[in-house]
């Protein structure tokens, strides 16, 4: 047993805690790995890994297509649609960005006037950065939801023999759930503030709900109080690593450098983290 082929999801209740920092450095530390950026609203990992040989794949979603010649204006579909994505005036209007594509309109249409077409909602970019295969999802601007993008990303690595590091979207909404659903292990990253602790608790509730094994990385720790650490003690959460606040780290990170490639200290630090995770996953 080891970490090969396992899916490690990195998450945090709030953004900006260092989720991407932890993800890219873990991925870069391994001789071969997958890095999957599921934070499709604000993907950032590729800015650090700078992958090459990018292949782009469009991600589409099915939406209804109206055959206006067949539509006679029964409005059954308009009445049925729970999302209010359809309206009928002198012809049927489909609001594609509101449609969830449940298929209900097609089922209820007595004239068979509805079929499907594909609507582009974003893209994924697949590239390579040294030993890291990168998979990045991008939600198209002003598109409300990108669950199919996350599904496609995770599909790409589902049978990979390599370790996959999954950079999950912040929060605990459905996209975060989708991202961690099939993870073998979760890493929760938290800041040393009352905000951080509040959001760590949310992430904790989420991994508990999915009954995932997990550990916590405390980032940007300072001398003085750390409400997140207190919460770990209180809830008996395993602390995997503490990364002290460091201006050098801040600078390297702001420029998009990967710490483990630039600094011996951080290579060792993340080495210890990887070792701990490997042990935890192997349990």
């Amino acid at each position, binding site marked *: 047993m080891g970490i090969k082929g396992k899916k490690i999801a990195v998450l945090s209740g709030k953004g900006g805690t260092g989720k991407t920092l932890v993800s890219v450095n873990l991925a870069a530390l391994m001789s071969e790995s997958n890095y999957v950026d599921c934070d499709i609203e604000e993907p950032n990992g590729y800015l650090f890994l700078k992958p090459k040989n990018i292949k782009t794949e469009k991600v589409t979603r099915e939406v209804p297509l109206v055959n206006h010649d067949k539509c006679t204006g029964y409005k059954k579909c308009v009445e049925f649609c729970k999302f209010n994505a359809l309206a009928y*005036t002198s012809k049927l209007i489909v609001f594609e960005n509101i449609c969830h594509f449940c298929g209900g309109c097609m089922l209820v249409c007595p004239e068979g006037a509805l079929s499907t077409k594909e609507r582009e909602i974003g893209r994924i970019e697949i590239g390579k950065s040294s030993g890291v295969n990168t998979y990045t999802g991008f939600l198209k601007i002003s598109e409300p939801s990108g669950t199919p993008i996350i599904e496609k990303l995770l599909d790409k690595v589902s049978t990979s023999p390599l370790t996959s590091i999954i950079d999950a979207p912040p929060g605990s909404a459905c996209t975060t759930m989708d991202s961690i659903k099939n993870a073998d292990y979760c890493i929760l990253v938290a800041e040393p503030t009352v905000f951080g602790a509040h959001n760590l608790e949310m992430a904790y509730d989420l991994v508990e709900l999915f009954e995932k094994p997990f550990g916590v990385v405390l980032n940007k720790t300072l001398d003085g109080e750390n409400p997140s650490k207190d919460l770990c003690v209180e809830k008996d959460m395993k602390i995997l690593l503490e990364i002290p606040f460091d201006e050098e780290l801040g600078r390297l990170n702001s420029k998009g450098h990967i710490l483990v490639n630039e600094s011996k200290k951080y290579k060792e630090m993340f080495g210890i983290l990887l070792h701990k995770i490997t042990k935890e996953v192997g349990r």
Partner: protein
Amino acid sequence: MIIAIPVEKDSKESLVSEHFGRSNYFLIYNTDAKEYRFVKNSAAKSSGGAGIKAAQIVVDENTEVLVSPQLGQNAADVIKEAKIKIYKAQVGTIKENLQALEEEKLNLLSEVHEGYHGN
């Protein structure tokens, strides 16, 4: 001519609603018959697409003129497709707005704000 106005209460004294899609009622006023009635806006509590559903209600009443303080993009798409004229409502009562409309003091609603998103 049939006029529709989003309103807060189902009474003649009601104020015009600030919202279109999530107003409580629509006043439907037939100027020829001088008859009015109130239609409950079943879209008001929708999780999403309230503007679209509200627009459908207005269209289904054979409305020719809509007086509303604002209109989302999606609702406007439906209203325009149905060739309903849209005037910008003033803050105030139904009566004040009907009078202003009659005296041609209301402007056509030109600005349409981007869609309302409720998932």
